[in-house]
């Protein structure tokens, strides 16, 4: 199947995988596995649907280089299950990243049959297994779909990042509108980068081909691979086995995961709705405010004494308007895409959990069959042994990836929501942006703006505390302008403190 020849290349420095697991990797092959195809440690555990008989040409790599040179997944025989767990516990270290991908420059192509958009995918890397250090290819959405399905097939219990949807019905966005294309481009960019950051997926061969192959190379490569029929056969078997109750012997951890995902999925969907609703309300608020300011300017035209105050209010409302626009932009650039991504993630995770259940189901059904068919015991027990390992690998892969996902999720949520808070802080601060002198006392400020004599302003301050229901209430001559010095200083102090705290905690992906 995916049995492509791999030659161990020159040892590379450990990539963004950290050093956590390497020390524990046990290179000794397990006994009793004829034709033991041991592939690179990582990939081995991940490949569970591969057919067993094609792994002869795979070699076992030493600890260091094996990690560095995971070219593809293939054999189903892991070196040792326990070692695998440790492999997955590393932190993602962005500083050690050696693969940089950007997706940009959407272009539309018109053929006789269809119109579609391609995106430019630029890859820069220092990895040895890449022939060059820079690649530029064009890919269309279908290609991304292909990549995703290959990754899913190769690593059924790993969490593959979400792809933007084919067609967004909700917003009634036209397929080729600029906004739609831009949103999709950003999501595709994120997709590829998330794969690049994943300790296992980043070394996937199809991923490499996706990044580097020219258009015709890619289409010919696509045509290889397991036939549709054989893949369908696998799926049918899997489904059949799961139906037979793969949930029966589910380990506690995965039941917990399932429950968690159900609640999480609910909550994230609601959050997504809330965020969209807020955006909508802010947009309507903005629309009304646009009309609000000019009315004051119009009024000032028929007044003399209060014309200035009116114009002042008008300009402040306009400022408010602009700040609202920025606030909305912040939402749509930051919060909305992330929430949407995690909505998709929740679906993906439910799928991953199901697949794990399926694998377990296979094992369970074979075990049941064994109980009934005594004579073929030996054969079965071998099969069962294989399946047991398969299940264990799948479980471990999932567990590790789950932890990683949760950490990332936490990180993402923290930074996104902090960003939202910052966004809102900026909004409130911006409605008072006239820079002002160094006057600290309110009186001084009032005098400055209105050239009111000190005595008058003091008088006015004394009359400050009138009952609010009394129509003759007096106020000091506050305007929008006055608060800057006070508020900006206050806000800046607060902001600086929080920024310090925030930057310590924030782990950027």
């Amino acid at each position, binding site marked *: 199947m995916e049995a492509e020849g791999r030659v161990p290349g020159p040892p590379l420095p450990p990539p963004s995988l950290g050093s956590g697991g390497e020390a524990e990797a046990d290179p000794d092959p397990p006994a009793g596995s004829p034709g033991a195809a041991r592939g690179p440690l990582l990939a081995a555990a991940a490949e569970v649907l591969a057919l067993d008989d094609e792994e002869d040409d795979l070699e076992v790599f030493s600890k260091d280089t094996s990690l560095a040179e995971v070219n593809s997944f293939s054999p189903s025989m892991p070196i040792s299950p326990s070692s695998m767990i440790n492999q997955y516990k590393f932190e993602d270290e962005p500083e050690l990243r050696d693969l940089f991908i950007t997706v940009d420059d959407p272009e539309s192509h018109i053929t006789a049959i269809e119109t579609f958009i391609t995106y430019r995918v630029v890859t820069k890397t220092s990895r040895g297994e890449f022939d060059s250090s820079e690649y530029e290819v064009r890919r269309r959405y279908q290609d991304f779909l292909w990549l995703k399905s290959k990754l899913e097939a190769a690593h059924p219990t790993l969490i593959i990042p979400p792809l933007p949807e084919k067609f967004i019905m909700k917003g009634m966005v036209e397929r080729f509108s600029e906004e739609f294309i831009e949103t999709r481009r950003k999501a595709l960019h994120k997709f590829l980068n998330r794969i690049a950051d994943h300790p296992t997926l980043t070394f996937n061969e199809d991923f490499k081909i996706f990044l580097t192959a020219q258009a015709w190379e890619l289409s010919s490569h696509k045509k290889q691979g397991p036939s549709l029929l054989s893949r369908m056969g696998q799926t049918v078997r899997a489904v059949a086995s799961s139906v037979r109750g793969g949930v029966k012997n589910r380990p506690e951890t995965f039941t917990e995961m399932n*429950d*968690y995902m159900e*609640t*999480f999925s609910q*909550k994230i969907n*609601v*959050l997504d709705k*809330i965020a969209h*609703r*807020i955006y909508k*309300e802010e947009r*309507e*608020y903005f629309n*009304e*405010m646009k*009309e*609000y300011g000019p*009315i*004051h300017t119009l*009024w000032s035209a*028929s*007044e003399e*004494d*209060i014309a200035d*105050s*009116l114009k*002042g*209010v008008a300009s*402040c409302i306009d400022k*408010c308007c602009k700040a609202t626009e920025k606030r909305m932009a912040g939402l749509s650039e930051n919060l909305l895409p992330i929430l949407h991504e995690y909505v998709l993630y929740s679906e993906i995770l439910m799928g991953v959990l199901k697949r794990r259940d399926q694998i377990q189901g296979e094992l369970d059904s074979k075990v049941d069959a064994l109980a009934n068919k005594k004579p073929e015991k030996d054969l079965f027990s071998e099969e069962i042994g294989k399946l047991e390992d398969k299940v264990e690998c799948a479980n471990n892969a999932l567990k590790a990836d789950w932890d990683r996902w949760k950490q990332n999720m*936490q990180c993402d*949520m*923290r930074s996104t*929501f*902090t960003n939202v*808070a910052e966004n*809102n*802080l900026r*909004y*409130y601060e911006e*409605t*008072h942006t006239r820079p002002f002198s160094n006057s600290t006392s309110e009186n001084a400020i009032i005098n400055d703006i209105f050239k009111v004599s000190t005595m008058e302003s003091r008088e006015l301050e004394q009359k400050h505390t009138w009952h*609010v*229901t009394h*129509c003759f*209430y*007096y*106020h000091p*001559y*506050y*305007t*929008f302008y006055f*608060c800057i010095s006070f*508020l900006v200083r206050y806000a800046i102090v*607060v902001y600086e403190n*929080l920024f310090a*705290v*925030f930057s310590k*905690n*924030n782990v950027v992906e």
Partner: protein
Amino acid sequence: MESAEAEPSDSRPEEDGAAPRSGLPPPEQPVATMEDCLAKKMEITVSEAEKRTGRNAMNMQETYTAYLIETRAVESQSEGQCAPVDSLWRRYSEFELLRNYLSVTYPHIVVPPLPEKRADFVWHKLSADNMDPDFVERRRIGLENFLLRVASHPVLCQDKIFYSFLTQEGGWKEMVNETGFQLKADSRLKALNATFRVKNPDKRFTELKHYSDELQSVISHLLRVRARVADRLYGVYKVHGNYGRVFSEWSAIEKEMGDGLQSAGHHMDVYAASIDDILEEEEHYADQLKEYLFYAEALRAVCRKHELMQYDLEMAAQDLTSKKQQCEELATGTVRTFSLKGMTSKLFGQETPEQREAKIKVLEEQIQEGEEQLKSKNLEGRDFVKSAWADIERFKEQKNHDLKEALISYAVMQISMCKKGIQVWTNAKECFSKM
């Protein structure tokens, strides 16, 4: 209230401002200074509102709201005692009656307007129901405002009817009706007619009319948009409240993020709740603007009166001129203009000299009367213009002062809203960064 100070109309008979016969103040009426104003002598509050049921004019059951007016004389500091509080109940229709009386009796004064009868410029939170407690409360404040404005007006505060409105519970309505002010009210039709056909109104009044039209249109536009803006702002804040609920539900399944989420959710709830106070304060601001919206109508009323008087004057002058002409024609026997008289005389023969003499005599008397009337009308008109304009200047100052303060208070409100927002989001940010 027995203190002599509190009854200015008794102690200063020459300043009796109550219902001058001709509908105009006597010339050179000494106007009360600010210190003599009723407002300074008497504390006036509309302190409560109560729902009542009763029978109306058509003997049907109806519910209405009654307002408690409390008055208390402001004693000088040396006495050190607090005077007792007098109170009586009045309903909105009585306020309306008072205002109608004042506007008819003092047509040269810009009479303060009443708060709106029905809730206007509502946004979704306020109901348009007259019985809604928020509306009733705001109307109570508006009525108090009205009374205070009248009491601090140098002319209006001396009116006896106004005084008894504040102090005499029973029989006030009858007293008002006895003044017969309704008869003095100019018919709307007459006024409209005058507006169209007047030839030479004082330019200042024409400008004032335009100004009041502009003021009315711009303020009503502003209030409409403000109501919509308030609605949207309400939406933005309240949807954030949903975060609170979801965060707290989500925090239940999270171990490390749980605390951060939970406390952030609490802050979202605070944020969502803060809009209620903010918008309530804004309603006060809107009410202040509304007052001046209604003042525009009062301004127009003064302009209309001027136009009416001017038209009257012009008509009287015209009448006089035509009578003089007639006289001349009869005297000289020439028919200068094409007239019915000319026609009939041609057809039926001329009148006898005796008849002519009689007619001339009558006409001369009428001309005499007419000239006197014209003189007095002229005088009235000039006085009206003078006193009206004095009040208008006073009004303009009041308006500029009040509106400026209203705008400033609006700015203060916005600032405080931003401060609250900053506080909430700072707290929320802290919670988020701890997740």
